[in-house]
């Protein structure tokens, strides 16, 4: 585990309404971090900033390799990923959706097949791999989102409400996937949720988003 993320004193407002206020945190140990907080507390905003989709108004978001700050370039972006609450499925098969991250990295066909097959097996979608991904149920869509992110083997993986709008059974499946991932990978997984029970089941570290800050962790 080489990659770390250190957030220092970031501020973010939308239309002059502050969302993040002097928020700091370090993701520097491998394992699962779960971020909880009420609706509108700024979890997704924090994730989009960590995932390099947005910039903070003030403060610093630095990825480190050892003691070196990494440039915010495509190389860095390819070492992390963010699974959004709405997955954003491409209009093609389940297999090709899952293969996307590898294809844009120029990975060769047989290697893609091997890795994608493994990831689809992992999330239980092997039997659907030739189906158009837009026809999946919301639970299956969420699982495909996880598989699609897993194939690129991110060193830091942000999952924003991976089990929102999903039934009990699929929630359990998704939690199982995350727990399995924890056993197999030695990377950093960060999950946002507002289900406290779920947070306790998954977390190595529990973080609370309150008043625009990550105020407690234990």
């Amino acid at each position: 585990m080489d990659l770390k993320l250190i957030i220092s004193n970031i501020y973010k407002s939308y239309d002059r309404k502050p969302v993040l206020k002097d928020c700091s945190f370090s993701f520097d140990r491998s394992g699962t971090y779960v971020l909880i907080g009420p609706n509108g507390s700024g979890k997704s905003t924090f994730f989009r900033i960590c995932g390099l989709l947005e910039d903070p108004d003030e403060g610093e978001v630095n990825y480190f390799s050892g003691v070196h700050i990494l440039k915010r370039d495509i190389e860095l972006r390819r070492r992390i990923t963010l699974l959004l609450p709405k997955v954003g499925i491409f209009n093609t098969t389940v297999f090709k959706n899952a293969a996307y991250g590898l294809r844009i990295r120029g990975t060769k066909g047989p290697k893609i097949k091997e890795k994608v097959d493994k990831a689809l097996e992992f999330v239980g979608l092997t039997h659907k791999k030739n189906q158009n991904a837009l026809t999946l149920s919301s639970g299956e869509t969420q699982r495909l989102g996880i598989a699609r992110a897993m194939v690129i083997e991110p060193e830091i993986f942000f999952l924003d409400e991976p089990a929102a709008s999903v039934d009990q059974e699929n929630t359990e499946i998704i939690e199982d996937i995350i727990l399995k991932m924890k056993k197999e990978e030695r990377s950093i997984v960060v999950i946002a949720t507002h289900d406290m029970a779920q947070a306790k089941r998954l977390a190595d570290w529990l973080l609370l988003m309150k008043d625009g800050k990550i105020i407690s962790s234990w």
Partner: protein
Amino acid sequence: MVIDDWLFELLWDFTPLILYHGFGMDPIIEGFRRAFSLIFTLDPELLSIIFLSLGVSGTALIIATVLGLPIGALTGLKRFPGRGLIISLLNTFMGLPPVVVGLFLYLLLSRRGPLGFMALLYTPSAMIIAQSILAFPIVAALSHSAIKKIEPLIKQASLTLGATPFQVMITIMKEARYGIMSGVIAALGRVMAEVGAILIVGGNIAGYTRVMTTTIALETDKGNFELALALGIILLMLSFIINMFLYLIQKKGVVETAIWT
């Protein structure tokens, strides 16, 4: 005898009507008969007119797509000053009357016009240029709106999976493929059916610049219905095929959009 007389008189009275109907129906039925025989015997003149039509419209469509798709992509994907103006212009030019295009192009290409030295007037090249001008705004404007309709989620998903800005662009255009294809096919439908512009700049020269629509116009004028009818039937069939494609593509697009939401 009485009956004969009566019959005779009856016929006499109605003769003008019978003659009128006989002569009135005949050219149409006869025209259709000869039209089908032209089609089924693969008449060389007919074929050469069809191939020229397809060649001119097909080439124009390729040019319009090569130029129009990047403009549609640029205006659909990027914000820059003047973007709104470009989109409004494209939408305006989508409904450009073909004769107006023909007129302007004629003025440009005529011997004393600014491009007269190229000697393009009354050539298939002039017709291709005219139809490219007609097809271009359709391809550009419809691919613009197809690309615009793609959810921002798609862009975010490809960014989070590590796509470069160029790869993001390609991904969005792939997502918009059905909309883009409908735009291209709609443009083909328009140029295939168009007569005003190519008549003016092509001159309707037999065996050289005479295409389906211009032949129909000319032969109808001259009262030679069989060739006009044969071409009319084929044009109708082509238009039907084009619209079937359009329908199938749009249906596919709609079904998949419906699943989306």
